[in-house]
C-alpha cells in the first residue's frame, strides 16, 4: 500500500463511520453524505461526494452518482455496494457500515504493519543504490589518479557500465518493494 492509498483509506474510514452515525440518527441520505464528506477532511473525497450529492442538479439520480463513484476504486465500490444492497433488501445499513468500517480499519492496520516491516529494507535499498554514486564522487574528489582513469576511454566504459547496473538495481529493487508493500 502506497502512502497516498493509505491516506485515502483512512479518509474513507472516517466517511463510513460518519455515514453509519448519520443513518442511526435518521438523517436523509444526501444530507448524510454531505456531512460525512465534510467530516472526512480530505479534499479529494469531499469533491467526489459533492459530485454524488449534486447529481440531481445535473439531471441524474443519487444512485447513478453513487454507482459512477464506485467505479473509481475497490474500496469505494464496497461502500457503494453496501449502501445499495441495504437500500434494496432492507438490511441493517448502520450495522453493515460499521462492519465495513471495521474491515477498512483492519486493512489500514495491516498496511501500517507491512510498511513497518519493509521500512528497514527500503532504507537499506536506498543506501545501496546510492553507494556506487557516493563511491565515485568521493574518488573523483580525493584521488587524482582515479580521476585521471575515470575520464579516460576505459574509465568512461566503467562509469557507463556501473551506472547501467545501478539503474537496473534501482528498478529491480523498486519492483521488489512494490510487491512487498
Amino acid at each position, binding site marked *: 500500500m502506497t502512502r497516498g492509498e493509505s491516506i485515502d483509506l483512512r479518509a474513507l474510514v472516517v466517511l463510513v463511520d460518519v455515514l453509519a452515525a448519520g443513518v442511526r440518527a435518521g438523517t436523509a441520505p444526501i444530507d448524510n453524505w454531505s456531512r460525512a464528506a465534510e467530516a472526512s477532511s480530505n479534499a479529494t473525497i469531499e469533491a467526489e461526494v459533492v459530485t454524488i450529492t449534486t447529481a440531481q442538479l445535473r439531471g441524474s439520480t443519487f444512485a447513478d452518482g453513487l454507482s459512477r463513484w464506485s467505479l473509481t476504486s475497490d474500496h469505494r*465500490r*464496497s461502500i457503494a*455496494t*453496501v449502501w*445499495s*444492497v*441495504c437500500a434494496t*433488501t*432492507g*438490511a*441493517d445499513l448502520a*450495522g*453493515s457500515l460499521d*462492519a465495513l468500517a471495521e*474491515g477498512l480499519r*483492519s486493512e489500514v492496520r*495491516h498496511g501500517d*504493519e*507491512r510498511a513497518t*516491516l*519493509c521500512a*528497514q*529494507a527500503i532504507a*537499506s*535499498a536506498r543506501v*545501496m*543504490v546510492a*553507494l*556506487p554514486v557516493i*563511491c*565515485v564522487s568521493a*574518488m573523483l574528489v580525493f*584521488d587524482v*589518479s*582515479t580521476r585521471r*582513469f*575515470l575520464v579516460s576511454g*576505459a*574509465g568512461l566504459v*566503467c*562509469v557507463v*557500465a*556501473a*551506472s547501467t*547496473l*545501478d*539503474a*537496473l*538495481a534501482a*528498478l*529491480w*529493487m523498486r*519492483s*521488489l*518493494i512494490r*510487491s*512487498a*508493500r
Partner: protein
Amino acid sequence: MIATLFSMPGTTCMLMRSAVVMMDHAPFLVALGWSATVIVLMAQPKRQRVVRRFDEASPDLPDRSTTPARGGVAVAMSGLIGWLVGGGVGAALAVVTQRWVRRQHRRRAERIEQELSEQAVIEWFDVAALSAQAGVSLALSLSNARPMMAGRALEWVDSFERALERGSSTDDALRNTVSGSPSGVRRVVDDVVAAHRAGTSLPNALRRGSTQVNEAIWARRSERARRLPIALLGPLIVCILPAVCLMAVVPMVVRLVAPS
C-alpha cells in the same frame, strides 16, 4: 523508458512469456555458440603446442608447421572433445534456465489465479451476507449479488445460477462453482455449506468466510514483506557489487598494473 515499461500492468507477465518462447530454442543456440567458442579457444593453442613439441623433439626434420598432418588430427580431436564438452554443458545450462523460467511463469500464473479467486469470494460473500442479514435464503442471497459483481465473481454467480437451473441443490451448486479454485477458497466455501446445512446464522458464516480469506491474504503479504531484506540481496549481488567494483576496484587495479 525502461521504467515506464516495467510499470505497465502485465508487462512482467508478457516479458516472462516471451522469455519462455525464446527458451524453447535456447538449448540449441546456446550449445552451438558454446561449442564454437570452445573449439576456437581450444584448437588454436593446442595446434601451436603440438607443432612446437614436434619441432623440439626432432630439430633435424623439416619444419612441422609446413606439414601439419598430425597437428591437424590433434586439432580435430580437441575440436571434437570441445564440441562434446561445451555442447553438453551449454545444453544443460540452457535446459536448467528454461525450466527455471517456466517454473517462475507457472508460479506467477498460479498466484494471479489465487488472488483473483480470493478477491472474488470476498466480494461475493460480503454482498451475499448483506442480503442474508435481511432474511433472504442462501441461494437468493448469492444470486442477488449479481448486479454488484464484476470479473471472476460475476462468472461465479453465472455458473451458480446455471447449476441451480439444472436442478442442483444450493450446496452442490456452490461447491461446483468454486471446484477449480485454490484449496483455501474451497475450504471457505465448505465452511459456508456446512453452516447452511447445520442451520446456523448465514450472514455470520458468509462474513467469517470472507474474513478468513482476507486474513490469508494479509498473512501472505506480511510474509512477503518479511522476506524483502533477503529478496534485496539479489540486486545487491548481481548489480550493486559489480558496479562498486567497477568504480572502486578497477581504477586501483589499473593503477597498480600501470603505475606510470
